[in-house]
């Protein structure tokens, strides 16, 4: 593994700061979403997961998956003590779309160092992917620096959200009856957006 700090010191300090600043500003809308949805996932884990110390498990799920949908769906599965094969199948079905995200990034990330690439692949969730793709920095080194910060910042929002949710769900007397609707609502919203997109595309094609 090459010396990371030395590599990045090729970028001027001022520019590095500018890149971090841009990554942070771009991540602000995602922060709102990740913190609230992560919080909901954590509360769900605390109320329906049937686990000891829910904050830990919610946080671990957050770190392990960095996938909103799976963090919700795994809760009823582990509450019912489902087998590993069932959980594997569930994860496969839910996160199948991720297999297509890398396609547009393969060429861009071709020469990235192994461990940095590993982290970037691990944190390739929907919103983070969208920000990676939207990044207009052409210089490969600067692009890499931006992508790493982008992945790190957004992933940390998600993990913070889930952990806080798990903590709040188990420690605060908030009413949790019906909280499982967040999961249903999440899927309904995704589905509605997909149908909306489909209709918009059809209209465009017909014209």
């Amino acid at each position, binding site marked *: 593994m090459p010396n990371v700090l030395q590599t990045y010191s090729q970028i001027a300090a001022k520019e590095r700061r500018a890149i971090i600043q841009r990554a942070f500003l771009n991540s602000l809308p995602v922060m709102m979403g990740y913190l609230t949805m992560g919080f909901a996932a954590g509360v769900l884990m605390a109320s329906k997961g049937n686990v000891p110390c829910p904050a830990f498990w919610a946080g671990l799920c957050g770190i392990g998956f960095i996938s909103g949908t799976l963090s919700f769906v795994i809760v009823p599965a582990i509450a019912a003590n489902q087998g590993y094969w069932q959980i594997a199948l569930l994860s496969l079905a839910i996160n199948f779309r991720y297999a297509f995200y890398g396609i547009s990034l393969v060429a861009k990330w071709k020469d990235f160092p192994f461990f940095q690439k590993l982290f970037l692949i691990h944190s390739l969730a929907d919103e983070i992917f969208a920000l990676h793709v939207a990044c207009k920095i052409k210089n490969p080194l600067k692009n890499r620096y931006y992508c790493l910060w982008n992945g790190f910042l957004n992933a940390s929002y998600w993990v913070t959200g889930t952990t806080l949710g798990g903590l709040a769900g188990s420690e605060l007397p908030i009413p949790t009856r019906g909280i499982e609707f967040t999961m249903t609502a999440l899927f309904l919203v995704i589905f509605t957006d*997909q149908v909306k997109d489909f209709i918009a595309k059809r209209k465009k094609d017909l014209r």
Partner: protein
Amino acid sequence: MTERVLYLFGAVAVGSLVTFGLRALPFVIARLTRKDSACFSNRAGAVISPIVIFALILYAYKDLELATPWPYIAGVITIALQIWKGKAILSIIAGTIFYMAVIANAGCVTVNELEYDANKPLLRFTNKGIMFKEMAVTPAEAIELLEKNNVPKDKTLHILVDADYTDKRAPWVFQRNYLARNGWTRSILVHSRKWETESKLQKEQNKGRTTSSRMDAPDKL
């Protein structure tokens, strides 16, 4: 306890590995085929995911209070808001708050009408086998029926064991392997002798009122 913790670690590991594997797939394929871009089309992703999401909607609905109209109304509110405003967080929070508000008070019809006390056990071990109400069922069918009737998992479930029921182990195994594994972690075995004295006491309390058979299952389910 340790078994559960180990299971949880395993479950999170499985989910993480599968997710990571999927994310890494294009990079692995590119490495193996020595091409910069993987050769399969991006279209499959666009076609497959709505179907999966629709299946997930059904999956998520299964755990809601389906006997009441509220899950459907909350769903319509969520979709309507999403079509109107297009702000995902707003739609999700509004739908959930609405659902939680109505379900906290009026929504729990299915729960309130069931009584879970020792005098009206839902499940009974007799020499004919396991009885759910008046039906003889297998353990798996019993779980299915509990699931179907939305029997809440956070309530204590009483299981009556007839005095002449010979197999001492079966109810205990059922409790552990079927009930606990499916989420009904709180269940109590009520042995019929103890149960009889309880019901006698109750008979004395409401004298004059003729009680029907002691094996009466809950009327409403």
